[in-house]
């Protein structure tokens, strides 16, 4: 509206060089100058206060502390960490812990959410009701409360470490978490990982080739099955070629705690459970509305064209449902990642918790909070950028 100039009776002719507030173009400029001016003024006010306060109390500033020795311990770390390492590395450990719980949480929540979403549409009354009860209960209770509940259930409800439950040989469940046997370290595991990556690349190339061939000759190549075969087969070959090691690292009670094997700590379990169960309820709703959004006529039309039911789902239904599902689904993924910051309340060392410790130890609150916000913003922004790209890709092409 700012771009059009209106002529009203009695007003000076538009386009004249006279400066008048009733000219929308002028007014827009004045407004913007005022708003930007006010924002700059408030910003300057806050920043000058902060600088003044920092200087007056001789509080240290800057990020040089990131290179100092952290000197505190972290219970769970994906990469090697000891108190000898720097604050920077400690923070990295936190970021990786956040990513770990978020990625696993996203996968589990998607699986559970999809199941529940489909179940809500089930023709079986009992199942549909059960699924909707789940959704209505879970999403109307604060996630933090759910988290506390899961944590209390594990740390208070399970037996002490010395009388750990031992449901399967080698598996121990106690207040200290779930201990399971882990395959002993062996170069084969790395080779299997590489083999899997090779299979993924091969599948991608295969798909392109198959598409081109289909476009050329009309012949369909079973890409899906071949890709699956590659992804399972290649690592399997690597495993056998590596001598098929079967040695397991068994957890055993030594001194205060179980030693060896893999451990799922109560904190990790609680945050994972809390996030998964909570987010799954929202994902269920997203999936349900996505399925409803696709008109039944689409299925009928596809059948009328003689398309088999597999391709109907893959080529007709899913692309349309996904267009509805993916945007809200991504925002749920983002919510899950942001909610993982609740870990602080139960002591899982995520990035917020580590940054919090850092800001306590160094007294540099501004830097600490900026690091938290910066990290989450970069995660959010990268997901948004991906989303925009994806939305453009799947957007309806109107002809």
């Amino acid at each position, binding site marked *: 509206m700012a771009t059009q100039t209106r002529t009203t009776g009695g007003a000076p002719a538009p386009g004249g060089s006279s400066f008048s507030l009733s000219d929308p173009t002028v007014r827009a400029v004045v*407004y913007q100058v005022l708003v930007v001016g006010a924002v700059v*003024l408030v910003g300057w*006010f806050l920043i000058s206060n902060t600088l*003044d306060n920092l200087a007056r109390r001789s509080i240290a500033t800057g990020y040089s502390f990131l290179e100092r020795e952290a000197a505190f*311990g972290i*219970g769970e770390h994906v990469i090697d960490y000891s108190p*000898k390492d720097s604050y920077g590395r400690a923070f990295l450990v936190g970021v990786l812990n956040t990513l770990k719980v978020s990625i696993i949480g996203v996968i589990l929540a998607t699986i559970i959410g999809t199941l529940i979403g489909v179940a809500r549409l089930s023709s079986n009354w009992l199942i549909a009701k059960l699924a909707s009860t789940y959704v209505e209960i879970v999403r109307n209770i604060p996630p933090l409360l759910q988290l506390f509940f899961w944590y209390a259930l594990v740390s208070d409800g399970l037996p002490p470490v010395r009388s750990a439950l031992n449901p399967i040989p080698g598996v121990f469940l106690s207040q200290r978490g779930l201990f399971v046997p882990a395959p002993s370290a062996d170069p084969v595991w790395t080779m299997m990982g590489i083999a899997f990556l090779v299979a993924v690349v091969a599948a991608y190339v295969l798909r392109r080739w198959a598409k081109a061939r289909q476009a050329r000759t009309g012949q369909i190549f079973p890409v899906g099955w071949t890709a699956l075969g590659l992804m399972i087969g290649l690592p399997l070959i690597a495993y056998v070629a590596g001598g098929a090691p079967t040695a397991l690292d068994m957890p055993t009670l030594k001194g205060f705690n179980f*030693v060896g094997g893999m451990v799922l700590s109560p904190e990790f379990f609680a945050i994972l459970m809390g996030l998964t169960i909570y987010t799954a309820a929202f994902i269920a709703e997203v999936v349900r509305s996505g399925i409803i959004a696709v008109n039944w006529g689409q299925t009928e039309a596809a059948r009328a064209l003689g398309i088999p039911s597999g391709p109907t789902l893959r080529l007709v239904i899913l692309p349309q449902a996904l267009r509805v599902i993916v945007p809200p689904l991504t925002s749920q993924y983002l919510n899950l990642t942001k909610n993982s910051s609740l870990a602080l309340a139960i002591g899982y060392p995520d990035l917020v918790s580590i940054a919090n410790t850092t800001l306590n130890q160094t*007294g540099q609150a501004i830097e600490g909070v900026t690091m938290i916000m910066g990290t989450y913003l970069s995660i959010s922004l990268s997901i948004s950028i991906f989303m925009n790209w994806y939305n453009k890709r799947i957007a309806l092409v109107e002809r």
Partner: protein
Amino acid sequence: MKSGILAAAAAAVVVTATAGAQAATLDTVKSRGFVQCGVNAGLPGFGSPDSAGNWTGLDVDYCRAVAVAIFNDPNKVKFTPLSAQQRFPAIQSGEVDLLSRNTTVTLTRDTSVGLNFAPVTYYDGQGFMVNKKLGVKSAKELNGATVCVQSGTTTELNLADFFRSNNMSYNPVVIESNDEVNAAYFAGRCDVLTTDVSGLAGTRAGVAPVPDDHVILPEVISKEPLAPAVRHGDDQWFDIVKWTINVAIQAEEFGITSKNVDEFVNSKNPDILRFLGTTPGMGKALGLDEKYAYNVVKKVGNYGEVFDRNVGPGTPLKLERGLNALWTKGGLQYSAPFR
């Protein structure tokens, strides 16, 4: 609307100007009418509110002492409960005038956090508490233990240092709130609870379901001199806090208590006369009432009284004087002379 924002911004600028002019904390406190004191939200013996909201504890009593020094009224103080995380920003920003929250004096806090520490009010050290059932007799036997510790404290760092220097491993469970740390320990999530020995005693006395099930190990792995702190940049205010704390120690050394202080007003000892303000000079130098020391002793008591009332053998904490005895009795509590 826009003009509203402008007006607000302009008003804000005016506020800066006036705030810049008033620098002295003492004047701010006087015009406000009370001391704003940051204390622990719930550490029995040092700072905790009862169910009626009345604050008690050793740290709390020092807040009251400062209030008495300025206003001659132990109730002209308001308490802001602070978490470990909130305490430094609160004192840095001026939200509280005085941080009396079992805070360890360290070099980093004195420099990059921007604090000035008053004389030590409690000499503490970090210890370990374990369940008796574990049969642990020494901290050196804790290899592989799971340890509950509060985040953002010197405790967290000492813990890492102790295990590192003894070549032992441990599994930290680091939680933000003190209540949660205690809850996790008593639920059995950890083998060991670590914090200052006084804090362990307080927790065992006030929080443990059965206090006798838990034992505090003999090792004290760190020095934790706890002291009130003020922010950098106001020497007069720092002096007031420093010399209010010294009053309590000096009074005990003189043998002056809240009960017998009136007998000393006309003492023969010129030191005591100067101290209590019968001979003027000391109070005025600080910008306080000449009789501020008399008031502090009268209304709050000497160091021994404060100690006994809050953490001494007669309280649930049952702490001995130990390092906190006067220097004349083999302890470390020592006041610079009032001269």
